[in-house]
């Protein structure tokens, strides 16, 4: 006989007798339902073991004792709210007694399975009835008799039912709402467990473990009625009847050891359950799944492209990423499939087939079987995405932020996996991806709603916050997974807070304030650059103000157009946002460097403006006036648009959250502050002696240049164009966001480089000035030179004419 051997029975009896002494003795008073149910099941298991020991009388006695447990609160509860389950339990106990008498081990195992399922069904029914009646105490007691979704490395059993009942007890939740939480949790758990029991039954059938086969098939069939009502609501009565029949056959064939019948029943059950989700999804959950599905699907070809080249896998980690996204998309699709199929069965089937195909492609690439072309992957994904676009209802397309958080979590999982494997390069890639998902996803809204959360997230992703070191630093230093994991946990908490903040939204006052701060911060740099450069453009150079202003006006117009277009193209812009920002930033920095160089020459060598022009042309590498004009237009444009683009992204997100009126109020407030700074700067420039004004503006420009250098290099690090070498110094987050100071060698070197460039430029100008003085001295102009020198050092007030020496220079030039 392929079932237990008699030796096992001896062992089991001894083991169970020792393991459950309470079960054997039984407490004196009435037991709570969970305890009576547990004892009952233990006794039947003991009976099963006794039968194997060829001790049918012991087995019968144990079953009788098990039947005796069906009394007290357990029996009363079942009788009042789950009479069918009570009958099933009684029938199972009767079947167990019959099996014990007939020495039928397999029938006894099957009876044990039916008993367990009946008790769980009963508990479900009583718990639901108690919650419906508002009896939290009774519900809590019966909820101790339940199954849970299996805990895995990444998932934990649900707690919705427990918390709903607690809130019911505290009077914070009405019975109706509590019931939703309880049913959702229990249905989810039982559907998951049903899947587990079906898999166990199939495994036992394959191995020929008859008792286990009969028992697990009986549990699976017995749990089905918990889900069946939902199934009928979703699929109709006819399908319900078919599914009932399939489960009944599953149990029967399992008990008989009929492999053929079992296989057929198993197939019918799988088909019936395909795409069915018993736990009711809330609208938010459906939207979240839909967001996951579309986002994950879009990313499959992206990673596949990164990981393959010319029919070969070049970066296995990227293939793993594309597999993770495929699996994530498939999982989300399976949750929505039933609903989507009701809308368009063929469309849903098409998406399902495409996902399956994608799964095969990426797994084949991983396993080295074949590497299909990028076109094939993109074509398959595109087919699925386009079908989904038509299939997914509009109300599910509103939850991008939540799917962004899911995407970030998935990518951070990959990061940790890579670190575990000692693969720090892929880990860094994953970090940058996760950051990009955040920066051009939730961050846009969070900046206006909860900027402190943004600061925390950025800190954890980059160089540290709240005493935890940042992921960028940890990865760059190849630190072990446990340290990375610590930061990951802190990051998860920050992201969770972010998700919560997005859900709650912001008050109008907060939104206005934050919008104003954004406009002020982004506008400040631009205004300082414009003000400083324009102030220095006097005399003959005054003409250059116009192209610069023109460029600035153009950028303002472009910013406004971007804002208007943003509603439709925001997601597309956001996708390339950081790269775009990096490129525009580079242009701005480049031009500013050239202008600064010219600027210092202008300050210290004003008499030789004509020579300066020649030199400047040489330095600038431009030869014609039109190119020079174009340069200033570009400077004006890039200075403003660089900030304008970022501002638009933030404001657009804010508008989605708080409305246009709030945004405009914030813009007005921030704009006024920027204007005040601009006026103050212009006023300062006009009041100061020309030389001092130039020095002040020169210093301002240098500071702004250094800020831009830091920020631009940091942005380039964000898109992976520049490496990251952390410096072990804690820098406050505000230093980064306002002053461009980040604790990396590259950003600091860039800032120092900017400073050195300016100082070098100054020293060069000084040298040239002295050389010209010597020449003038040599040609007999020493008194004039001395007189000029005195004036330049403030020993003598300059005349209004002298305040703008270019005017005089112009006459000589």
């Amino acid at each position, binding site marked *: 006989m392929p079932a237990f051997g008699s030796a096992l029975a001896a062992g089991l009896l001894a*083991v169970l007798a*020792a393991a459950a002494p309470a079960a054997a003795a039984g407490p004196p008073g009435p037991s709570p339902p969970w305890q009576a149910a547990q004892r009952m099941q233990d006794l039947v298991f003991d009976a099963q073991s006794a039968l194997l020991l060829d001790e049918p009388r012991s087995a019968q006695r144990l079953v009788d004792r098990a039947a005796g447990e069906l009394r007290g609160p357990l029996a009363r509860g079942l009788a009042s709210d789950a009479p069918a389950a009570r009958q099933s339990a009684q029938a199972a106990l009767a079947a167990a007694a019959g099996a014990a008498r007939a020495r039928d081990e397999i029938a006894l195992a099957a009876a044990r399975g039916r008993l367990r399922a009946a008790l769980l069904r009963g508990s479900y029914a009583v718990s639901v009835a108690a919650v419906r009646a508002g009896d939290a105490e009774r519900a809590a007691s019966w909820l*101790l008799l339940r199954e849970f979704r299996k805990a895995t*490395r990444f998932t934990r059993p649900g707690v919705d039912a427990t918390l709903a009942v607690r809130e019911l007890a505290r009077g914070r939740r009405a019975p109706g709402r509590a019931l939703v939480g309880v049913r959702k949790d229990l249905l989810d758990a039982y559907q998951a467990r049903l899947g587990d029991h079906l898999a166990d039954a199939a495994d036992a059938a394959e191995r020929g473990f008859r008792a286990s086969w009969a028992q697990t098939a009986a549990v699976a069939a017995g749990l089905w009625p918990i889900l069946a009502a939902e199934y009928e609501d979703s699929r109709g009565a006819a399908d319900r009847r078919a599914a009932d029949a399939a489960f009944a056959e599953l149990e029967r064939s399992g008990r008989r050891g009929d492999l053929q019948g079992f296989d057929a029943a198993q197939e019918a059950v799988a088909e019936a359950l395909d795409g069915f989700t018993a736990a009711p999804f809330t609208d938010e959950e459906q939207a979240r799944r839909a967001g996951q599905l579309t986002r994950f699907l879009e990313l499959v070809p992206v990673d596949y492209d990164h990981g393959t080249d010319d029919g070969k896998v070049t970066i296995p980690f990227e293939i793993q990423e594309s597999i993770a996204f495929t699996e994530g998309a498939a999982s989300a699709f399976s949750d929505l499939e039933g609903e989507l199929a009701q809308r368009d069965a063929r469309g849903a089937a098409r998406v399902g087939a495409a996902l399956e195909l994608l799964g095969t492609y990426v797994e084949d690439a991983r396993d080295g079987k074949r590497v299909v072309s990028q076109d094939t992957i993109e074509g398959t994904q595109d087919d699925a995405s386009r079908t989904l676009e038509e299939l997914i209802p509009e109300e599910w397309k509103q939850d991008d932020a939540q799917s962004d958080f899911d995407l970030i979590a998935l990518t951070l999982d990959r990061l940790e996996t890579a670190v*575990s494997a000692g693969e720090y390069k892929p880990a860094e890639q994953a970090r940058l991806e996760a950051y990009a998902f955040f920066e051009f996803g939730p961050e846009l809204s969070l900046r206006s709603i909860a900027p402190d959360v943004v600061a925390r997230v950025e800190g954890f992703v980059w160089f540290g916050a709240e005493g935890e070191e940042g992921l960028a630093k940890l990865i760059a230093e190849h630190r072990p*997974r*446990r340290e990375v994991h610590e930061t990951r946990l802190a990051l998860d908490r920050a992201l969770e807070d972010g998700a919560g903040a997005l859900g709650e939204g912001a008050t109008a006052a907060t939104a206005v304030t934050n919008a104003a701060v954004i406009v002020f911060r982004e506008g400040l740099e631009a205004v300082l650059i414009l003000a400083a450069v324009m102030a220095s453009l006097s005399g003959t150079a005054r003409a250059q103000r116009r192209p610069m202003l023109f460029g600035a006006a153009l950028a303002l117009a472009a910013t406004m157009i971007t804002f208007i277009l943003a509603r439709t193209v925001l997601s597309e812009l956001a996708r390339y946002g950081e790269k775009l920002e990096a490129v525009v930033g580079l242009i701005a920095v480049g031009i500013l460097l050239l202008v600064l160089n010219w600027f210092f020459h202008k300050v210290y060598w004003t008499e030789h403006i004509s020579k300066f022009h020649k030199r400047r042309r040489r330095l600038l590498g431009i030869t014609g006036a039109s190119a020079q004009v174009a340069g200033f237009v570009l400077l004006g444009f890039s200075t403003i648009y660089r900030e304008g683009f970022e501002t638009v992204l933030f404001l657009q997100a804010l508008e989605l959250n708080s409305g246009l009126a709030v945004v405009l109020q914030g813009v007005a407030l921030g704009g006024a502050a920027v204007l005040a700074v601009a006026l103050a700067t212009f*006023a300062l420039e006009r009041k100061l002696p020309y030389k001092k004004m130039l020095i002040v503006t020169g210093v301002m420009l240098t500071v702004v240049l250094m800020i831009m250098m830091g920020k631009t290099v940091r942005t380039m690090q964000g898109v992976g164009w520049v490496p990251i070498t952390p410096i072990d110094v804690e820098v406050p987050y505000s230093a980064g966001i306002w002053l461009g100071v980040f604790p990396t060698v590259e950003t600091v070197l860039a800032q120092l480089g900017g400073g050195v460039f300016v100082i070098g430029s100054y020293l060069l100008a000084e040298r040239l000035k002295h050389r010209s003085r010597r020449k003038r001295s040599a040609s007999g102009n020493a008194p004039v030179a001395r007189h000029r020198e005195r004036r330049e050092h403030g020993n003598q007030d300059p005349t209004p004419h002298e305040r703008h020496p270019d005017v005089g220079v112009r006459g000589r030039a």
Partner: protein
Amino acid sequence: MTRPALARRPALAAAACTLALALAACGDEEPSSERTETSTVAAEGADLAAIKDYLLEHTERLVADTGAIRENAEAYHALAEAAHFDYASLLDEQRAEVRRLVRAAQRFFARANPSYEEMEGVVAGVPSLAEYDVIIDAGSDASDPENAVPFDIETPAGRTFKAPGNFNFLIETAAFGTEPRFQAKGAEADLDGNGEVEFGESLPDADFYVAAARDFEKYAKELDGSAREWEPTLSDALTSLVVMTPTMSEYFAAWKNSRFIAGDKATETAFVAASRLQDIADILSGLVLVYDNVEPLVAQADPEQAEQTEQSLAALRDFATDLLAKEEAGRKYTAEEADTLGSQAQERAEAIAGQITQAAAKLNIEIEAG
């Protein structure tokens, strides 16, 4: 034309600019120093210090045990080196000494194994320590990159074993000769010279073995250091129970596939020094201790649930302990029996994990994810 007041006072304007920058730098995006704390309950009633004491007692034991393994490995390596790693001549000339050292290696491993297993529940369940579980006991080799150990072994001869597997696996299979990759080449491990290589006769590759033993001791010391720095929290304690308890089926599967069930047909090369049941019993003992120390707190939230979990966990531990006692008394289990017993244990374990998750939710204590 009247200028604005600021324009009439250049110094004031300059100060305003500076102030604007300074104020800007003090914007509202300064990170909040207050982190959102999930857990709001005090650890009143829970004895977390006892859990740490238990852990440290075991990390110290592990350091001592791995030290003994390493010293023995050094002696074995010196012996092999003296024979220029010619294992055939080594056996010819030093068979008795080789046998003594190999037997000692097996004995030392058998002692070190429970030192770790008894604390595995805590180590694997505490996020800040969990990586040591991967390194010492749970990590796979490079063929399973998702779960592979995060280290390579560099031998004195300059060979590199990339992500070769966890240290318990490495030391056990090398010492017992069940993994050919870690065995010396060019000689049969006939330690008693009877012309046959029987189970337990092993001739470890000394170059590999000493490197693995050195690194094992190094990581054991690291674990000890990290454990000392660890500040136990209620979240750690409950997470360890939720993470470790429902892994029973994996342990029973390993038991089923080991020599203790499958004999010479075993597909599992590890778990030869001691039955996997021993590990199961050890782990559960550790978890019972953890639960006992937090049970008063759980009881504050729900006394009935606290009692249920206490009974269930103790019953599960006793279930494993008694199976082990029977096995040690000579009882042989079949694969089907192991399967059934494993299912029974798993069912109970999953229920316990679920119960503890509910208790944590009631106490508003976060159970950490993976």
